């Protein structure tokens, strides 16, 4: 006994090319939708992971532009202002502070990098406190510095790969005529640390002649600390800028939101075009089967049955298109991510596209929902066909 859905499915097979092209349109729309929604949640997660991996909730920098501070945290920065190292003593007395780690960023032009040279960045860290804040850092080779003032360097995985460094190598600091001995190579962490050269901050102060100066201090606070109130309190210190990680997250997120809204708009337009295609396909199919539908009604099919029959065709197209689109999105996630990284070079490390089962279900649901709405009109048209009109259109006799 044929079911309504079986009749609908067989009818879609009648015009294979037309059904295939409609299916392709829906699949591509679903692919775009899932990739963009996956990008939205993947980007947020990567950004959060990157910031959480910093190991501290508040960053104190010398007074300046907060975005400069944000850039400093995410990608490193240059041309920064300094604050006195004595700020560490003031911070240590604050009851909210659990741990502190001083940092000193330095950058210098290195003509030996690549064909035209590039900026070489060094991050001065405190071997006593920094490793305990970045507990995820593991060594592929070697270990942290032998003492707080040693002219030594620990290199992130990507930086070591790029410059082909090994433990025991010497790195020349351009312009300064100082060599740093590589004592450790880090494993890949999926964070900005992979591209960083770490040096004891006291040694870096000496190399760059900025003794007693820091560019930032990372502060880990006790649990349940009111971070907003603590920030306010820190502003009592002179010439400092306080940046909380929550603030950084929201600032970066809002910067990216405009881009996200734009791409989502494009996705919505793509979906709408696909849905117009669905409506056109089903409507054509209804008009071509005018007599058939009339005959079905003469056999006792009600308007509701015909509506269901035509709507089933839309459901089949949208469901199949949604599944194929989801498979495309999952299969081509790496390619899509490369494309997004090309468009947004300063994006967080880690997977930028996060496609999980709930997202796939939600996206197929959206496609199905829009598809069903676009199927209403053709289904309604079909359900209104009167058997006699359909028969008369072919019999030609009164």
């Amino acid at each position, binding site marked *: 006994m044929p079911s309504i859905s079986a009749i609908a499915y067989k009818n879609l097979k009648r015009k294979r090319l037309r059904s295939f092209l409609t299916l392709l349109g829906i699949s591509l729309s679903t692919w775009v939708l899932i990739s963009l929604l996956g990008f939205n949640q993947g980007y947020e997660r990567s950004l959060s992971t990157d910031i959480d991996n910093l190991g501290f909730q508040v960053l104190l920098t010398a007074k300046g532009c907060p975005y400069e501070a944000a850039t400093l945290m995410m990608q490193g920065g240059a041309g920064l202002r300094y604050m006195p190292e004595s700020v560490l003593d003031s911070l240590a007395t604050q009851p909210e502070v659990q741990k502190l780690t001083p940092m000193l960023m330095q950058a210098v032009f290195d003509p030996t990098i690549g064909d035209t040279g590039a900026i070489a960045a060094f991050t001065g860290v405190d071997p006593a406190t920094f490793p305990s804040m970045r507990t995820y850092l593991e060594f592929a080779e070697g270990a942290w510095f032998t003492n707080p003032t040693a002219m030594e360097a620990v290199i992130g995985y990507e930086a070591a790969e790029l410059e082909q460094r090994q433990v025991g190598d010497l790195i020349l600091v351009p312009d300064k005529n100082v060599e740093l001995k590589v004592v450790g190579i880090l494993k890949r962490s999926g964070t900005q640390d992979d591209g960083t050269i770490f040096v004891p901050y006291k040694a870096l102060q000496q190399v760059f002649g900025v003794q007693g100066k820091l560019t930032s201090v990372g502060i880990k606070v006790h649990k349940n600390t009111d971070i907003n109130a603590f920030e306010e309190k820190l502003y009592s210190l002179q010439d400092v800028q306080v940046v909380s990680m929550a603030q950084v997250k929201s600032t970066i997120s809002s910067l990216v939101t405009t881009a996200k809204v734009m791409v989502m708009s494009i996705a919505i337009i793509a979906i709408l075009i696909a849905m117009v295609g669905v409506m056109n396909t089903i409507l054509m199919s209804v008009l071509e089967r005018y007599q058939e539908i009339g005959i079905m009604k003469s056999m006792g099919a009600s308007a509701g049955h015909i509506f269901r029959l035509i709507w089933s065709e839309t459901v089949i197209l949208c469901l199949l298109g949604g599944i194929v689109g989801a498979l495309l999105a999952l299969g081509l996630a790496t390619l899509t991510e490369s494309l997004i990284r090309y468009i947004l070079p300063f994006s967080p490390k880690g997977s930028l596209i996060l496609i999980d089962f709930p997202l796939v279900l939600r996206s197929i649901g959206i496609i199905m929902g829009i598809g069903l709405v676009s199927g209403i009109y053709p289904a309604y048209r079909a359900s209104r066909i009167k058997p006699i009109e359909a028969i008369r259109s072919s019999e030609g*006799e009164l």
Partner: protein
Amino acid sequence: MSLIKANGLSKTYLRGAEEIKAVDGIDLEVSSGEFVAFVGASGSGKTTLLHLLGCLDDPTGGTLTVMDRTVFANGKAMPERELTKIRRQVFGYIFQKFYLIPTLTVKENILLPFAFHRNPGVLHNVLDVARQLGLEKRLSHLPKEISGGEMQRVAIARALINEPKIILADEPTGNLDSKRSVEIADILADLNQNRGITIILVTHNHDLAQRAGRIIELSDGRIVSPDDHNV
């Protein structure tokens, strides 16, 4: 027992400003077990009358009763939902052009009425019906794979599958050669005589009309020659 009763049944069309009376005040009663043939020239109104009696079209005047249920009276037709039920429960339709669904097999075409009203009990009927009509070896074929005569037999099987009280056939042999026409005429006569199914058909085929117990000639939408005779 009277299955269909029409009084002053009319159907008027407007063609531009001109009013066309396709069926003009027909009084007719069809009893259970009858075999009635409508004959007449093209445009005489026989097909329109068949459609009106089969609840496929709405009259514009008169009254129509099918199995004691008023289908049309006082210028008002029964609600579409009720008409759908009557079409399903009372009638089986056979058309000149067969109207088989090309994507469905012969078996699926025969069972098509039950796609909308599931009734697993009829599955065993399909073999009986197919056997009676010589279609048992064609059940898995598509319509394009069978002959015109077989297509019409599939259409008859489809009309029979829901065990209708009345079969309405509009030029059932119109698309067939003389040999196939005789086959179809035999089948219809057999359904009437041996299964007691009431048959109302429209035909230009003189031999087929002669199988009917009652031949009604129409002209200009009116009955001009009701002729009762025995087969």
